[in-house]
């Protein structure tokens, strides 16, 4: 159990307890937005090396959605925020 994620509600937990949804950076376009904007939102993703921001679901714990900022090269975790708090405070 190499990767430990510090859940804001449950504390330090192994990554096996979580399920990763994916990139948390794309913002959902307005319903009436252009087809290009929706195509980009649904299908187009960067595949960066280094710092990434992702949605993680703490499936086996508090069952809350979290925003995890981590380095996908070194596995260092910089910040974990509840997704609701992150949504309230913009980029938390």
């Amino acid at each position, binding site marked *: 159990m190499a990767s430990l994620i510090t859940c804001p*509600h449950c*504390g330090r937990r192994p990554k096996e*307890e979580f399920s990763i949804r994916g990139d948390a950076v794309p913002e959902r376009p307005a319903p009436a937005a252009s087809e290009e904007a929706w195509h980009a939102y649904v299908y187009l993703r960067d595949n960066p090396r280094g710092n990434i921001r992702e949605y993680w679901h703490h499936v*086996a714990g508090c*069952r809350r959605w979290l925003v995890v900022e981590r380095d996908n090269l070194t596995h260092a975790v910089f910040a974990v925020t509840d997704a609701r708090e992150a949504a309230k405070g913009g980029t938390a």
Partner: protein
Amino acid sequence: MSISFTHRHILEDRMGGYEPSPNANHLTVVRRPVIFSTLAHAGHEAAVAEALSLVEDVVVRSVSPSDWLVVSQSASAATISASLATIPGLSFAEQSDGQVLMALSGPDVRTILAKCVAVDLHADMFAEGQSAPMMICRVAGNLARTGADAFEIIVPRSHAAYVFDELRDAGREFAMTRGFGD
């Protein structure tokens, strides 16, 4: 509560073996606990948590900031249901048939649990009375510390046999005994 589920416990067939009396390390399966799953509506979390702590004859296990398990070994489901219904901003559902409650106690219980749980169970990190949802033998369950060397586990009924077998194997080196407690 349906008769067929309470009539025969899911772990009934696993209690065999020659164990005349409980050892120091013992696993008790509670035969008929009452377990409610509760959820506070947005904005009511603090008030609901406060109100839940005042309900009599129950213990409250924390799941998430707005989510608790209400467990009782003495009060009836109807009584608890009636008390929960008076709390504003709370939704609840009875889960007694769907969950299995096991209690572990003994001097080596932390070593036994360390084989199944990835959370630090030192008293400084996980104090008496504390509870948290976590993976227990790779099954999502709830673990609570009820004493210095006593823990309670709540796991879904359909995974209980597997968790029970894993705990039995983990406790074998300490001659952990097991049995029903009523």
